[in-house]
């Protein structure tokens, strides 16, 4: 079910511009890993390479290996569509499909694949996913209302439900709480703690407290200056990164001296 991620010497380019350089990281299955670092340091770019979403932008390409368990997702003959079905993603701003109801949004992954579900199967999936996203109680009476009618925090949890409904191996979260109020943020953070029992979760966050609260391991990314590539500076247990980092840049960042 849940899979580990290993990057070996990964370079990410936008056209000729090297955006992220030489990332080596091993993320174990069923864990929460946080990426922190200042704006523009390449952490979101790197996250998007984990399910080949960066290829949506023109001119983006990747060098190096990225293994999902043992399989290289950039290997020859690998279809990005397959990768994305295995590695789900939650975006910075909640993006439920506006033309679909709450129920249809949760089932979107199945609808895409043309899987014919019986009514009861579909009900099971919807309930399970919405319960998994701690949203069931709030929406169970208005399943046929449009997803865009929910509050921001609910919409984001709906997006998480949509992602977990297809039971991917990995869930990527790109600053999932940055557009939400503190109470919704707390709800999402609780949810992340539950998700790691089943999934490998990777989360990008600007909020260092959040990284400290939810993650087991933390990677710190930094950039030497504009036009230079972003690099992963340090990767360790979260407690080590925040209390006793080995690198001086990390120390300065987590103690709030820059960034």
């Amino acid at each position: 079910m849940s899979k580990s991620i290993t990057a070996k010497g990964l370079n990410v380019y936008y056209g000729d511009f090297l955006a992220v350089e030489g990332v080596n990281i091993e993320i174990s299955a069923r864990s929460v890993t946080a990426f922190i670092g200042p704006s523009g340091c390449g952490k979101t770019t790197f996250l998007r390479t984990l399910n080949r979403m960066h290829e949506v932008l023109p001119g983006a390409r990747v060098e190096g290996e990225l293994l999902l368990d043992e399989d290289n997702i950039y290997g020859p003959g690998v279809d990005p569509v397959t990768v994305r079905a295995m590695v789900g993603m939650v975006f910075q701003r909640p993006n439920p499909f506006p033309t679909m109801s709450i129920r249809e949004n949760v089932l979107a992954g199945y609808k895409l694949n043309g899987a014919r579900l019986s009514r009861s199967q579909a009900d099971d999936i919807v309930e399970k996913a919405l319960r998994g996203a701690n949203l069931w109680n709030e929406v169970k009476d208005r399943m046929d209302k449009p997803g865009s009618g929910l509050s921001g925090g609910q919409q984001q949890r709906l997006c998480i439900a949509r992602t977990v409904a297809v039971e991917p191996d990995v869930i990527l979260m790109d600053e999932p709480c940055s557009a939400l109020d503190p109470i919704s943020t707390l709800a999402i953070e609780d949810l992340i703690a539950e998700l790691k029992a089943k999934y490998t979760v990777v989360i990008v966050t600007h909020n260092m407290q959040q990284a400290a609260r939810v993650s087991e391991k933390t990677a710190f990314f930094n950039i030497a200056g504009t036009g230079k590539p972003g690099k992963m500076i340090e990767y360790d247990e979260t407690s080590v990164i925040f209390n006793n980092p080995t690198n001086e840049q990390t120390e300065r960042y987590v103690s709030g001296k820059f960034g």
Partner: protein
Amino acid sequence: MTTDSTTRSQRRKLAKKPDNTLVSADRAGAGLDRGFAGLAKAAGIFILIILAFVAFFLSWNSVGALYQEEEGLIIGRFLSYAWPFALGTVVVALLALIMGAPIAIGVALYISHYAPPRASKTIGYIIDLLAAIPSVVYGAWGMFVLAPAMVPLYHWLSEWLYLWPEENLGWGIPFFAGSPGMGQNIFTASVVLAVMILPIISSVCREIFIQTPKLHEEAALALGATRWEMIKMAVFPFARPGIISGVMLGLGRALGETMAVVMVVSGLGFQASIISPGNSTIPREIALNFGETGHGTERWHQLVALGLVLFIITLAVNMVARWIVSRHKEFSGAN
């Protein structure tokens, strides 16, 4: 009715502080201000007057086609004169739409979602060039290049959809009866019209396809959707009103287009066949006859009345488009 905020605030000031020396300081300036506002408003009203005049003129001069002093009401005569042209106009426009709209939407999709991103802008310009070519040039092209090129197809259609079934089944599809001649028929005309409306529909659709929120596209892709599934899930629901208004715009253009039909179609007289010379459209009938018809004759009135019918048809198409778009607005996903 007061016209603008400045005038209004000016008046309020006047009312509040009548003795203030500031009030009289710049009378001339205030007058100019009001004058300019009035000028702008007059221009707007002038446009309304023009349109009212167009509508009035068309209706007033159409009366002569429906009523003559000696004979009384002659509505029946006008209808029997007008309906072949009205039908021809609608058929030609619909044929053009059936051929042009799917290709136009395909081209728009190609530019917005399939073409290499660097080339797509240039390709968009090239397609826009199609829209810049004047209709008379399309007419000439249809007359000299397209019509002869279509003749083999017409022979084939006539043979297999009319002659062959007639021999073997006793009846053939009447649309494909008759001899194609030089290919100067309303089918060729509708192909020319399809080419003409293609860039119009395509550019409207392209604009709206490009505006699809990246957020929704990425949501679909992140679920493992293929490109087509992403387009079906995120792009089309968002773009539906835009597609409809683009198609309606194209239909309006096809209904009112004159020169391409005048130059491509030869022959007169109504018939069921769309592949042999004959049939006509309202704009063609007006363009061919208006110059030679004496002012005030019944025929002259009939031609003007035909213009009114055309005006009403295109107006109805525009209204329907607007209605559909407004009805779909709440589902457009712009949230």
